[in-house]
């Protein structure tokens, strides 16, 4: 994690805005929304025969931010997110939600906590026997809210998620995206302070995924609602999460601001998860050699972000090198709202050319990575 962006973390989202649903008092104090302290989950006996799903996780989820936990299937992310609302108990360590130790709560206390935490699911988990309206009303019924108050609450909620006209539809009459919108309305019904998202977009097509992510982002911004999501898709994290933690084999291997982790991944798992985003084209990958032979060209990835994203550096590089620069691959993306460009170029591996290039990178602050050599 670089320090250049520190200080911005959380601040963008944490400002209380006084809009309905936000709680300025809660937003203002400084306890993180969720803190994992050496939290671990072990199934079965200690030693042989047992299975550790989550191993001693330390992680904080900032108030008002969207935090993503990314990992492959079986990495332990499902267990991790369920520790937050006590659906999974910890076998050692602690999980604090708003300063409260989840493991120390009794059944009643746990139910009270769960009514302050909304959750949405990969397969929506809507009741097939209830309409969209009645599904969204379920948490309120469970909390013992009277019918009149339920009607006053659920109507506007369905409008918020864009399903005002589908109140009377059963889940089987709705598309996947619409079902997830009902799921979101249901999760928001009790005005939770935290929303847990369990692979909420994994069963949806890319376009629907984007619209659901937009909705979550808007809810986060408008109501200051803290969101903790798990996913195996980097795209999801990149689109909405301001913070990310990478989980592998039950351990958090890397965490920080999404932009920093994305632009400067430290751990192998992170790189693999990113691979699809920063991948070299196949023809190029098979041609790369680790050591140069005579007449080879050096293959370099130039990474643009922050200040360098807005400068005409490629043109200057060509002028500076006095040698031809070949552009082989590249993409410009937006990561949690910031521009990020990656350009793969090749130029002569002659020592003086390389020296001029390196001097240029040092002067401009451009981040580079030598990928290998090509003919």
């Amino acid at each position, binding site marked *: 994690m670089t320090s250049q962006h520190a200080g911005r973390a959380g601040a963008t989202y944490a400002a209380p805005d006084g809009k309905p649903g936000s709680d300025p008092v809660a937003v203002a104090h400084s306890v993180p929304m969720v803190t994992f302290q050496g939290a671990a989950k072990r199934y079965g006996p200690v030693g042989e025969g047992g299975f550790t799903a989550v191993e001693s996780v330390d992680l904080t989820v900032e108030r008002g931010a969207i935090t993503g936990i990314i990992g492959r299937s079986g990495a332990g992310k499902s267990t991790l997110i369920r520790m937050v609302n006590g*659906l999974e108990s910890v076998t050692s360590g602690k999980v604090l939600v708003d300063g409260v130790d989840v493991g120390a709560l009794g059944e009643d206390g746990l139910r009270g906590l769960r009514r302050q935490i909304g959750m949405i699911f990969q397969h929506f988990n809507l009741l097939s026997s209830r309409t969209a309206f009645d599904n969204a009303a379920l*948490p309120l019924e*469970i909390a013992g809210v009277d019918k009149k108050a339920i009607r006053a609450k659920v109507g506007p909620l369905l409008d918020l998620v864009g399903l005002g006209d589908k109140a009377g539809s059963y889940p*089987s*009459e709705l598309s996947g995206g619409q079902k997830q919108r009902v799921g979101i309305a249901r999760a928001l019904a009790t005005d939770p302070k935290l929303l847990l998202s369990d692979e909420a977009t994994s069963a949806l097509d890319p376009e629907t995924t984007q619209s659901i992510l937009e909705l979550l982002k808007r809810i986060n911004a408008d109501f200051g609602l803290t969101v903790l999501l798990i996913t195996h898709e980097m795209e999801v994290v990149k689109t909405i999460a301001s913070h990310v933690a990478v989980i592998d084999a039950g351990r958090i291997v890397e965490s920080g601001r999404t932009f920093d982790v994305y632009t400067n991944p430290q751990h192998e798992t992170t790189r693999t998860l990113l691979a699809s985003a920063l991948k070299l084209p196949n023809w190029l990958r098979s041609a790369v050699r680790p050591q140069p032979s005579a007449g080879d060209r050096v293959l370099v990835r130039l990474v643009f972000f922050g200040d360098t994203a807005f400068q005409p550096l490629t043109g200057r590089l060509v002028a500076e090198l006095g040698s031809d620069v070949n552009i082989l691959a590249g993409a410009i993306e937006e990561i949690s709202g910031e521009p990020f460009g990656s350009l793969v170029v090749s130029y002569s591996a002659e020592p003086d050319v390389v020296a001029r290039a390196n001097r240029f990178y040092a002067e401009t602050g451009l981040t580079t990575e030598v990928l290998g050599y090509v003919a």
Partner: protein
Amino acid sequence: MSPDMIFGLLSKALMQTLQMVLVAGIVGSIIGLPIGVFLATSGKGELFPAPKTNRLLGLVVNAARSTPFIILVVAIVPLTRLLTGTSIGTWAAIVPLTIATIPFFARLVESAIREVDKGLIEAARAMGATPSQIVYKVLLPEARPSILMALTMTIVSLIGYSAMVGAVGGGGLGDLGIRFGYQRFNPEMMVLVVAVLIVLVQVVQSAGDGLARRFDKRNRKN
């Protein structure tokens, strides 16, 4: 036999059958439903964990279900006498019919409840629902179409069982068929009894299917 006589016998027997099936069906289901819910929710790590009681109840249910009905009828005569004051007649027949219905329906309810997507239970727990709220607001409504099908199946089986209670003077269509149709060799009566039974089963099945469909929102399309 005159047609009037046949009609008189048939209608009396139909009434007895309906009386037995309805009373045993209703009482048996009312008792069987909570037992079925308990069987489906009291396993290890489930909503009301009581694995020992669950296993014991499962054994009792299996024992009751594997006892041949005609033996059950005779075996529980003391109980029948205690409850109805007699061991013969239609009311006396209702007791073994009810006893047989309870485990039958309970098992069907258990499987109907177990079919409900576990994700819904998890979602309800995440909302802060109590175990009994999960039963009333999630499991029973979601299992309703399957439970209605189970009820239909139970009633159809009861119509079959009720034919055997002629042994304790329970009367009914089956008894009429055996005594007048078979033992007195009256094929017309036999055919008529069978025809009425077929119509009865058909009506029950259609009504049950219709009701189940009405409550089944799982595959509705616009």
